[in-house]
């Protein structure tokens, strides 16, 4: 199949390569052309040109505005994609934004799935991402073989936007868990107890989690190089809290964690791992 890919960052690049290795013809467009260097792919001049060439297009880019501009803006996908083709947006953006893009593409007979992923750069490399999809279930079934090149767990959550809602829930739980791990590590250190031992002891019990395992280890090693850059979680928290506000649903813990992320950004650690929440607690 002719598959387009836009967004060749730490997540997108390995994902695009999996699709190519599975035998699909890969077309790419990149805002910064150097990011597409060395890829076994046809490089397109604009998203519209890429859209014209492909049956399915993937996007993995940073913000709602970026996705909207690539999809709907001048020389955007909408100008090229043919009726019956499918846009699969794996970015993390606002649910409202995903619904808006889907509706606009739908007017042209182009289907869209919001299909954000969880699992980080390692999950993208190992093709073990969790994929949470929103959109028409028949469309999902059509492209499922492609998604199976990228991830193990593919769940149809509901109509357009539902995938992004699930991703927002994922981010809330995950970053709150990082904050909890950070506070536990901080308490242990302040009490003069070995953090590594505490983490090892907890791993067998009810507090065991993937976050404690991965981010907790980074905290023990004091290795704050990203994994996932904290600024992306900070961005996601903006989405989550805005969704909470729109729904009139109180989220006291999420709001408190959001403030710790604001402090992290103020300290200049946005490009480091979110395990840096530990360092925020150490600011005196």
């Amino acid at each position: 199949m002719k598959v387009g890919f836009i967004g060749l960052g730490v997540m997108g690049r390995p994902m695009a390569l999996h699709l190519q290795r599975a035998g699909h013809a890969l077309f790419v467009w990149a805002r910064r052309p150097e990011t597409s260097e060395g890829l076994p792919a046809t490089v397109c001049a604009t998203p519209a040109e890429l859209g014209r060439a492909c049956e399915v297009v993937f996007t993995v880019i940073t913000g709602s505005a970026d996705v909207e501009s690539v999809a709907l803006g001048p020389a955007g996908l909408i100008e090229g994609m043919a009726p019956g083709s499918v846009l699969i947006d794996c970015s993390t953006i606002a649910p409202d934004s995903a619904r808006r893009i889907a509706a606009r593409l739908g007017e042209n007979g182009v289907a869209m799935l919001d299909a954000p992923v969880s699992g980080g750069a390692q999950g993208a490399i190992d093709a073990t991402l969790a994929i949470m999809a929103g959109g028409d279930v028949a469309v999902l079934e059509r492209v499922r073989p492609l998604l199976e090149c990228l991830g193990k767990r593919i769940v149809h959550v509901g109509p357009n936007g539902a995938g992004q809602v699930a991703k927002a829930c994922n981010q809330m739980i995950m970053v709150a868990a990082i904050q909890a791990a950070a506070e536990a590590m901080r308490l242990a250190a302040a009490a003069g107890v070995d953090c590594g031992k505490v983490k090892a002891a907890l791993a067998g019990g009810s507090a065991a989690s993937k976050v404690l395992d991965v981010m907790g280890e980074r905290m023990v090693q004091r290795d704050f190089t990203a994994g996932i850059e904290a600024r992306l979680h900070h961005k996601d928290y903006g989405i989550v809290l805005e969704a909470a506000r729109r729904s009139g649903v109180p989220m006291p813990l999420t709001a408190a964690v959001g403030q710790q992320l604001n402090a992290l950004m103020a300290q200049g650690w946005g490009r480091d791992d979110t395990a840096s929440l530990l360092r925020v607690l150490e600011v005196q």
Partner: protein
Amino acid sequence: MRIAFLGLGIMGRPMALNLIKGGHAVTVWARRAESMAPLLNAGAIGAASPADAARGQELVISMVADAPDVAEVMRGVAAGAEPGLVAVDMSTIAPAAAKRIGEELAAAGVDFLDAPVSGGEVGAIAGTLSIMAGGSEAAFARARPAFECMGKNVVHVGASGAGQVTKAANQIVTGMGVLAVAEAYAFAAKNGVDCGKVREALLGGFAYSKILENHGQRMLDRNFKPGFKSWMHEKDLNIVMQTAHELGLCLPGSAATAQMFNAMVGSGLGEEDSIAVLKLLEKLSGQA
């Protein structure tokens, strides 16, 4: 002075009336034409659009709901403006939005002030609003006679956006202040102590505040009629939290408070006064 006033809601109507009382020649415009009637009866001239209202004026004032409304109204003003016009927005919007609107107007040769107010409907009627202005010295000097018809405490805080920054700071203090008084009452009540007596005792000490005095009394009377609607306070706290997010600013107290107001709107208390946060606390602690 020839003044156009755009937006005649709960706040705008009495503010415009006070300008007429102050002897100014006032032209009015409102989205809903029927809102203009009381002003026309008081001697104002009606306009068909913001552009129409702005034509031939020395000063234009807007008092509308939110940033997109301000931007739209001011685009009209720019279209009708003659050189040297000063435009003042007295709505509460994000500082960044105010700056942007100021820049757009500057490009059209209009000098802009952001000048949000505090004091509520009561202050608007009595002409005792606090007015916090951001923008150029010259524009502030031009607008001052109008401000003095509407408010008592008129402060030029700084450059464009500074008025909205001040208003946001005001909403942090009042939002947390109302929640603090409500929590103190919930605490006293759950301990079986009379809230009225607690208020009386606290008024003499360091916990004294206008909010304890006024809002505290209304909580005792269980008078939840607005005043200041809690959905509007929620909107203002959202401006605070959005700005904090953009700047990388840690505001844990405001964040917790914003979630309480969020819950109020979600549970149908949005049209009541912000002191209805007391009801929410009581529900959460099984006191209702």
